[in-house]
């Protein structure tokens, strides 16, 4: 069908003005949209109330459908497992034995670790979860990788909190409604997580690439410390993500960087655990950070008062010059600090 030769809708003045006003409204609306986008770029939490309300209204729809999807995908998996039962059984038995041996070794390590921590007087904050909830949907048509959780601020969830599953780190909360919240997945381009290579402690930054993979950038130049199959864990630097959560497994080496696959697949994991921000100072506004910290993230070993008239010497095995001054975040009154609340 050929469109009319010109868009003038006839001789009616009213109709002509209507068309003209339509274009004026459209262009004015685009200007408003640009302003809204500028606000969104400058202050990403600016429309928190509106977006949170929209999230609350829409999340139950996804939440209701999620169990249906889970049922069907579970059924497909179940049928597949039935056909591969024999070989899978043998394989699982072998894996189980391996895992048992590993478990014993880990228990020994954990005991040693606890003992060493006690010896150093290190106290770890956090570790307790805010909420256990489900991932109900994700963005699928935009370059951002965002997902929706079916719990919000009424469950104590606040922007900034890390989200993990049993398999590893999933992301962090960016918007909250009252009964739903939106999280930035670790594969999003705006997400960067400080990680380390547990083999030798090499620090790196895990930046999402937007296509389901993660790029690992080290601080070292020259040699690439990663090998295929390496698993990276959070290092706890920066204070948002608690340490020792698996983040990604290296799949490919590319020059100075490495490409990795996240260990936790949000499409598969049924439950997501929202945790507290590892060190509370990391989430506060900047002016709060300059105030003395009441609750210490890490308490150093209690700097025992030197015997009067006799300064501590280097020959003393417990002499640590860095700890003679008051540490930022060390409590003066508390002894070997328990987890401060």
């Amino acid at each position, binding site marked *: 069908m050929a469109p009319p030769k010109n868009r003038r809708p006839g001789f009616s003045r009213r109709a002509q003005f209507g068309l003209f006003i*339509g274009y004026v409204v459209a262009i004015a609306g685009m200007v408003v*949209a640009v302003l809204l986008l500028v606000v969104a770029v400058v202050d990403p939490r600016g429309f928190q109330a*509106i977006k949170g309300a929209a999230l609350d209204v829409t999340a139950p*729809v996804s939440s209701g*459908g999620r169990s249906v999807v889970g049922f069907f995908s579970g059924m497909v998996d179940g049928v597949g497992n039935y056909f591969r039962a024999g070989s899978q059984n043998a394989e699982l038995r072998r894996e189980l034995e391996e895992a048992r041996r590993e478990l014993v070794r880990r228990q020994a390590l954990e005991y040693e670790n606890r003992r060493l921590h006690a010896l150093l007087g290190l106290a770890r904050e956090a570790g307790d979860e805010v909420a256990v909830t489900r991932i109900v*949907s994700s963005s*699928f048509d935009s370059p951002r*990788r965002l997902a929706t959780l079916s719990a919000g601020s009424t469950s104590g969830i606040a922007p900034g909190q890390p989200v993990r599953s049993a398999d590893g780190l999933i992301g962090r909360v960016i918007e909250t409604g009252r009964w739903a919240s939106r999280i930035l997945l670790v594969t999003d*381009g705006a997400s960067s997580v400080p990680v380390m290579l547990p083999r030798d402690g090499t620090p790196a930054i895990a*930046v999402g690439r937007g296509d389901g993979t993660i790029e690992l950038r080290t601080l070292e130049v020259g040699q690439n410390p990663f090998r295929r199959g390496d698993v990276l864990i959070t290092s706890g630097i920066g204070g948002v993500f608690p340490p020792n959560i698996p983040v990604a497994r290296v799949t490919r080496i590319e020059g100075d960087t490495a490409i990795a696959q996240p260990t936790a697949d949000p499409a598969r994991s049924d439950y997501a655990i929202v945790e507290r921000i590892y060190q509370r100072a990391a989430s506060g506004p900047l002016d709060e950070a300059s105030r003395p910290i009441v609750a210490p993230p890490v308490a150093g070993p209690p700097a025992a008062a030197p015997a009067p008239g006799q300064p501590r010497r280097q020959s003393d095995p417990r002499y640590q010059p860095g700890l003679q001054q008051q540490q930022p975040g060390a409590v003066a009154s508390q002894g070997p600090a328990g987890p401060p609340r």
Partner: protein
Amino acid sequence: MSRIAGSGTEVAIRDFRFRNVPMLSTLAAILLALLPFVFSSPMVPDLGFLVLITWRLLRPEIWPAQVALGFGLFADLVAGHPIGQSMLLWTLVFLAMDFVDSRLGFRDYLMDWLLAAAAILLHGAGTWYIALLMGSDTGFIVMLPQIGVSILAYPLVARIVLGLDRWRLGR
């Protein structure tokens, strides 16, 4: 169903259908963003946008350009885009199509597909650039699968919209 409306209610139902099917089908397509699937890369086309431009290409006369503002705002709120993204891009596409229509005397199906492809490319580039401004440091290559799938999905969406249009106008 009889071809002739038998009562006042039936006339009202048909009139409602005639007027509102394009809008309701577009809103439904936007709401598909709520489907409970979790994707690890942008592969699925923006169905709301596809249905919107298909209606626009099929029936240039039903909507003035400013309706894209309303649809865009709704899509931004539903899909969690930064508010203003779809408002801006969709209205831009509508104005561009008005311009093309004023220059082009005649469009056939292939021409529609070409215009839709251009609109999809513009939309993909726009969302990618806005994401970049928002701090998501990804390569444009991430968007290519989605843009390709969207362009290939256009004939399918056009079929569905054409069916809806025939149902809307049918008696």
